[in-house]
């Protein structure tokens, strides 16, 4: 059955005010900040290619947009994804062993 979305009625408003205060503080800080003129990418810059080179610490080997090397974070994320796969399998299995 299709229903249209309805606003929830049991929302605790009091802790929500904390989130509103957080937004107010951040908005004041952002609007009073001055980031200077936008430098932007050069026309025709190879943006996607630069991501690929930066992922393997090759950003100095090719004429691409400047960046830092990200080979070590790449390996770390590989291990994190592996751990997440293992954790998901462990959680999905029923308690009490192999079945």
């Amino acid at each position, binding site marked *: 059955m299709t229903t249209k979305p309805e606003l929830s009625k049991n929302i605790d408003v009091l802790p929500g005010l904390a989130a*509103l205060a957080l937004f107010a503080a951040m908005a004041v800080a952002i609007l009073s900040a001055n980031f200077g003129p936008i430098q*932007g990418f050069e026309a025709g810059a190879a943006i996607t290619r630069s991501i690929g080179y930066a992922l393997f610490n090759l950003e100095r080997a090719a004429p691409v947009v400047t960046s830092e090397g990200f080979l070590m974070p790449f390996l770390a994320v590989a291990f994190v994804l592996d751990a997440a796969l293992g954790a*998901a399998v462990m959680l999905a299995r029923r308690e009490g062993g192999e079945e």
Partner: protein
Amino acid sequence: MVVETQYYVLLSAAMFSIGVFGLLTRRNALRFLMSVELMLNAANINLVAFSAQWGNMTGQTFSLFVLALAAAEVAVGIGIILVLFRNFRDVDVTEPATMRW
């Protein structure tokens, strides 16, 4: 005409605050997961906006890692929520109190 970076940062602050609001006011574990997704997306907007501001690729590349971490977090979170549902027949986060205090 290019949009000022300030407005992107303001948008991302608003999105992050909405995520915090969801975490603080609701009790459904699935909605917690969605609120965390909103907050991670706000961080991504920030990274990409400053990448475009300075003409540097570091922000865009790093936001790829945020994306990968978000996917891993959701996979584990959904496993936990399904176990929670199996044990309590509910996804209310105030129900499981045995490991509290």
